């Protein structure tokens, strides 16, 4: 019986509060390892370890590995799939899945590089890529949220039809980027770092802030964790779902401009199997495929791990099939490690 009449609860002063979490951590009697693993960076300790091991192997086997230009090459290679992974991470945390990303990017790249679009200049090309990406995402979102079709099927259908549409528009040819501004994006460096890496960093930063510091992010976690509970708490689950897929599509649009510049083409062959690469990165980054839990940092580390593997293998002049074997093994190893760490934590 806890009738405590007259009791008033005073909110802790602003300065003190937020320290509540830390105080709770201090009072924590769990073993040190478990506590370290529970910190933000620690959640991805497995991936960081993998990345460190890869770098050690890199330095040991290839004398050019640790050069600035090689590291920037890795980052540039990671930038496009990285931008797409930001969107995919959000969708998966929100309880969905987006298989259409790779081909939505291809479609946006093709749409933005047709002769007609290029005639309007770079601004229209960028707008076109973003609009096609976001539009594809909107279609996904509407079909999923209001058409009540499962995301796997909707986005699979979008993947297939985006591929077809991209082939149709491009006539199955690579469309050369003739616009000098767009073509220059990939070769522009600011303070010695390629522009694409800045774009990548900016998208990741915005994605991180949105996921962790905004109501949008919090709703994403809530809906992914328990959509029914979120709905009964008054959240507009359907509208939010649509927005998530639009965000993912927008990331594809950004990636489309990046790949058009990097390869100097718009092509329906771009982004083949990117959806699986992105999902693999999200999984090894510790995001639950069932939604509700996950970290963007983990996904990005996942992307970097995969890109570094590719780089390592090429530096050592090894064949691609060996790369794929290594990637598969790393997915399994990372997930195993992660689930062990999770158990140690709880």
């Amino acid at each position, binding site marked *: 019986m806890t009738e405590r009449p007259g009791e008033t609860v005073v909110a802790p002063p602003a300065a003190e*509060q937020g320290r*509540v979490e830390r105080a709770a951590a201090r009072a924590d009697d769990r073993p040190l390892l478990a506590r370290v693993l529970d910190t933000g960076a620690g959640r991805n300790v497995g991936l960081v370890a993998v990345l460190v091991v890869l770098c050690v192997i890199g330095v040991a086997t290839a004398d050019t590995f640790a050069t600035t230009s090689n590291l920037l090459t890795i980052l540039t290679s990671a930038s496009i799939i990285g931008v797409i992974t930001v969107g995919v991470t959000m969708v998966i945390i929100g309880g969905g899945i987006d298989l259409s990303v790779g081909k939505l990017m291809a479609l946006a790249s093709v749409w933005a590089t047709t002769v007609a679009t290029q005639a309007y200049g770079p601004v229209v090309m960028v707008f076109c890529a973003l609009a096609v990406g976001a539009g594809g995402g909107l279609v996904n979102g509407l079909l999923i949220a209001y058409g009540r079709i499962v995301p796997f099927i909707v986005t699979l259908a979008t993947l297939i039809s985006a591929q077809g549409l991209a082939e149709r528009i491009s006539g199955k040819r690579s469309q050369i980027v003739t616009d000098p501004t767009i073509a220059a994006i990939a070769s522009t460096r600011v303070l010695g770092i390629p522009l694409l890496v800045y774009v990548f960093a900016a998208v990741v930063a915005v994605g991180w802030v949105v996921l962790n510091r905004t109501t949008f992010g919090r709703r994403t976690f809530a809906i992914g964790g328990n959509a029914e509970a979120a709905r009964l708490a008054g959240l507009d689950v359907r509208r939010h779902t649509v927005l998530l897929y639009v965000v993912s599509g927008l990331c594809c649009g950004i990636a489309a401009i990046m790949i058009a510049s990097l390869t100097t083409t718009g092509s329906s062959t771009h982004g083949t199997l990117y959806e699986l690469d992105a999902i693999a990165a999200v999984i090894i980054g510790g995001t639950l495929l069932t939604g509700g839990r996950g970290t963007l940092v983990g996904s990005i580390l996942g992307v970097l791990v995969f890109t570094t593997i590719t780089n390592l293998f090429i530096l050592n002049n090894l064949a691609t099939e060996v790369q794929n074997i290594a990637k598969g093994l790393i997915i399994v190893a990372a997930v195993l490690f992660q689930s062990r760490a999770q158990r140690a934590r709880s």
Partner: protein
Amino acid sequence: MTGDGAPPLLEMRGIVKQFPGVRALDGVDLDVVAGEVHCLLGQNGAGKSTLIKVLAGAHRPDAGEVRWEGRAVEFAAPQAAVQAGIATIYQELDLVPGLSVAENVFLGHEPARLGFTRPRELEARARALLARLGHPEIPPGRELGRLSAAGQQVVSMARALSRRARLIVMDEPSAVLDADEVDNLFRVVRELTADGVAVVYISHRLEEIRRIGDRVTVLKDGRTVARGLSAPRTPTAEVIRLMTGRTLEYVFPPRTAPPRDEVVLDVAGLGRRGEFADVSFTVRAGEIVGLAGLVGSGRSEILETVYGARKATAGSVRLRGRALRPGSVKAAVRAGMGLAPEERKSQGLLMAEPVYRNVSLPALDRFARAGFMRGGAELAAAAAVTAQLDVRPADPTRPVRTLSGGNQQKVVLARWLLEECAVLLLDEPTRGVDVGARSEIYALVRQLAAQGVAVVLVSSEVPEVLGLADRVLVVREGAVVHEAPAAELDEARVLDLVMEGRAVEGSRP
């Protein structure tokens, strides 16, 4: 039939089970003899679930001895326990909804020859088992998911029998059943015990234990505090004292302020095709209105439709005179309504998220500026309101799943307290909540009403409705059949109204 002299079928001595940071079992003793219904009592967190899992082979005890039919045993895995003859029917039934009844009964040991299943033998044997349980009307070929909760439970029992279980553990079997289904359950249990099967029965409903139990073992804080008490002869007050140190089962705080005159919620002619029709009632500020009815009577559906979680096909819901858009929870929440849903885990909470994020969920915008969450205001507000409700442990950053059922319910209530809602809809607010936390929740609901909140309460437990509500609506078959002040009703009268016109025990459709 109590077997004080008979050799026990099962003997557990000094069972200890340690989890990281918790000593879940700290020396539990339990004796069960063949043919008895042995009730296991204890508050949430007393160790009942852990004990069942040890018995079922899902956990291995750190210390202590289990003797089965006089021999010391150690069940390395659930299969070992099943093979020995111990079957467990969990609260969340572990059946496969897509398979047929017969396939579920024999799941894992299907009658087969050379790897080929034998459907006709399967169905025949399932039919025999169902008949033995007094339910020959359940068709063995029917898809399991299409049976009622009660039907599924019977299938679970048939499965236990199909494995020739000598001991069946039932974890809160009545939680999902309504009154006449419970009667059926008890009949089945009696038939089983008459055949010499022992049943370990777990329930929060003490009156059930008086009806069905032979002996009672009480757990508290991981220890056995009383064992082998006679179920029919031990006074309820004594059992409650053993469990809690308290002396009463339901403690309702006294009514303080009478309801005010202002009508807050006005439901007029509300209907939903196939579920209920023409439901009208009003709730005044500070008033608690109870909806009494059986599971399936439409009471939860009415509540969810008022809230907008289901879209009304007729009628209107007005909050302080303003009509709410049908089928929009968002509109209802904005207007000042809150719901504590029936299924806390699946409908109410983000189990993996910390307490404070569960509390602030509907109020996110209040802690944000232009969409960006503002530092600690949210945590502070949630900490304040959870502290006010005495949510334990008092750490709002703990994941909700680590809290007990009662405290989880308080988190849901804290959410609407923070929202300062004008209308609070409570659907089974004390289901799965132990006795102590129940009283706190009752006190809280009263306190909210005293502050002017209009409360609508749905509960299967008639004493709860009568003790808490000012006015009671009796719902039967999708219609309000009676309305009266709680003070003019008693338990028998309400039960009579609720059941009127229902089939007599035994002749089910």
